[in-house]
């Protein structure tokens, strides 16, 4: 896959609820391969490629990322923030962050006289944008503005680390699949909004599209780093076929459909049981009278930090697996 595309998609600004820039970036990569591209009321970016079978497949990858929202600006020009999505206050300390308008800042925590960083809470976190007063800060940033970690793409051999892998790497996978796929079905590639704040974007899109099958793409945890919680997923052993997470239990017929596609094309895959964390898969499954919904995930280390690490072999295989699913004539049925 084109590394420039991956870097551009990873680097686009887009915390939950502020996905315009990410959507613009992704749009340029999918528009050449779609019959129509539009955004819905929620802000989901939808690229539709027509088919002939009369069946509809929805692909969903979320384009929002975790971040910070300014809730107050104090007299000295420090920005007080609340979390947008699953930000850990300790990992969020001493980081470089950036706002939508390009203003940069760094983070730290108050009460350094009382305790160290390992006890810092979110209420103590602030962003320093280099201003000496509230008036000066208000010229650059307003209450309600959001910041994200500055992304820094680090190549580690066949692996790479970067912020926003969750879930832009899957946006890139879907964009690449739109280019490579052959499908007789109507394919709706949906780049969803607001997943990190409670899987809010996917269901309204599914309501409008009414697909026969949804395949979500997201990152998932691993069990191959030192002394971590047990999980039968390792980096580099293939994308995973989700069995369950805290938002969904994938119907066995959908799991079997994805696994059959993998086995037919000889694509390596792992089965994934994710203990904590939800995805759009569940919210989409519970839309209207129920939608068959499954998920392909990319094994990712250090999720929700600025160094989310994936293996590019898994990424390439995820594209192949997605294309293998899309080319199948028979879709899963109850």
């Amino acid at each position: 896959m084109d590394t420039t595309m991956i870097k551009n998609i990873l680097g686009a600004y887009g915390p939950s609820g502020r996905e315009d820039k990410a959507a613009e970036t992704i749009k340029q990569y999918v528009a050449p391969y779609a019959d129509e591209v539009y955004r819905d009321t929620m802000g989901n970016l939808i690229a539709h490629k027509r088919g002939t079978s009369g069946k509809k497949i929805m692909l969903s990858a979320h384009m929002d990322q975790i971040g910070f929202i300014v809730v107050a600006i104090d007299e000295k020009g420090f920005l007080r923030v609340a979390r947008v999505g699953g930000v850990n206050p300790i990992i969020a300390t001493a980081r470089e962050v950036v706002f939508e308008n390009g203003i940069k800042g760094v983070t730290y925590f108050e009460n350094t006289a009382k305790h160290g960083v390992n006890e810092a809470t979110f209420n103590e976190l602030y962003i320093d944008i280099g201003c000496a007063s509230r008036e000066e800060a208000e010229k650059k940033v307003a209450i309600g503005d959001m910041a994200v970690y500055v992304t820094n793409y680090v190549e580690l051999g066949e692996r790479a680390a970067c912020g926003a892998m969750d879930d832009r790497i899957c946006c890139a996978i879907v964009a690449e699949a739109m280019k490579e796929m052959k499908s007789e079905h109507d394919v709706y590639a949906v780049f969803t909004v607001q997943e990190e704040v409670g899987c809010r974007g996917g269901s309204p899109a599914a309501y409008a599209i009414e697909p026969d099958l949804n395949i979500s793409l997201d990152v998932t945890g691993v069990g191959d780093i030192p002394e971590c919680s047990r999980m039968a997923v390792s980096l580099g052993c293939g994308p995973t076929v989700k069995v369950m997470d805290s938002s969904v239990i994938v119907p066995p017929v959908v799991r079997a459909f994805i696994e059959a596609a993998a086995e037919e094309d000889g694509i390596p895959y792992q089965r994934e049981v994710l203990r904590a964390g939800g995805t759009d898969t569940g919210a989409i499954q519970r839309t209207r009278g129920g939608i068959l919904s499954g998920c392909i995930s990319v094994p990712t280390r250090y999720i929700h930090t600025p160094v989310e690490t994936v293996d590019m072999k898994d990424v390439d295989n995820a594209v192949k697996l997605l294309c293998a699913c899309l080319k199948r004539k028979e879709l899963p049925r109850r």
Partner: protein
Amino acid sequence: MDVFEALSALTTTPGVTGNEVAVSEVVKGYYKAYTDDIFIDPMGNTYAHIGDHGPVLLVQAHMDEVGMMVTDIEEDGLLRIRSVAGVDPRVLPGSEVLVHGKRVLNAVMGAIPPHLQQSGDNTKPYSIDDMVCDTGLDAAEVNELVRVGDNVTFALLPPMKLKNNIVAGKTFDDRACITVMLEAMDILKKSKLDCQVIFCATVQEECGGGARASVWNAKPDMAIAMDVCHAPTPGVKPFDAIDITKVSITCGPNIHPKMFKMITEAADEQNIPWDYDVAPAHTGTDAWDTQIQMGGVATGLISLPLRYMHTSVEEISLTTLKNCAKVIARFAQNIGADWEEKLCLDD
């Protein structure tokens, strides 16, 4: 209908939350005695429709059961598992379980024995992560037969008959209420109804799933959810439990006040003993999601009191089970042309 026989068939079929296919087949088999109008939605909810005119009453009971799933296979072939929904890890050590791999394997839930633990450790309950699921097979065989994601259930032992019409067994939550639905269908088979009843065996109740879709597919004018509730056991506070001989009828914000009234009338008309279950907010049942779907559904909730919930020795009274069916059936029989007035909230 032989209620005990139906309960046995239903509770000895696996159907862990999210994988209810086998139990759905058994439910369908029973439905067929009463109607040909049967269908399954994409979630797996399994419906039977009776009646040909009038408003639609949706009756729900969930068919999924608490259970477990394989998360990891150790090098020596021991399995690691997690709860899919609702398993109390304290009941697991020493339990016989079944691993639903390529074929069904007998296994035991094991943990480090107390005499090998540090002193004081035996006062703490085991976490599910500390336990192993041991099939007794060697690693090669296990890897051939079992995969991550396979379900693990309690052993599928048939229910036992105890004294005073009390029965004990596994998965009475909520297969006993599926049995109530079947018994209600049996009572109604000779009735001329002025309503349509859609019975729905729902999926994924134990993790909040199937009820929503059941409303979208049945488009009901009113709904009665059925579930089990707690019967008194030692240490349970008053008002937290309902006598095992009484039908529990819920009131509170989750319940349409007129539905509550009509359900209690259906019980009183037949001199069926019942008691109030007051839910200040969440009822923890299919009723919770059902009420707010689409434009809102007039929702009621009937529960069957049960001892030792989510263990493999749950207890209910067969008399109360039949009484629940009588209440549902009478409720349906009482629905007439004036149903909209009866449900009107502005009087």
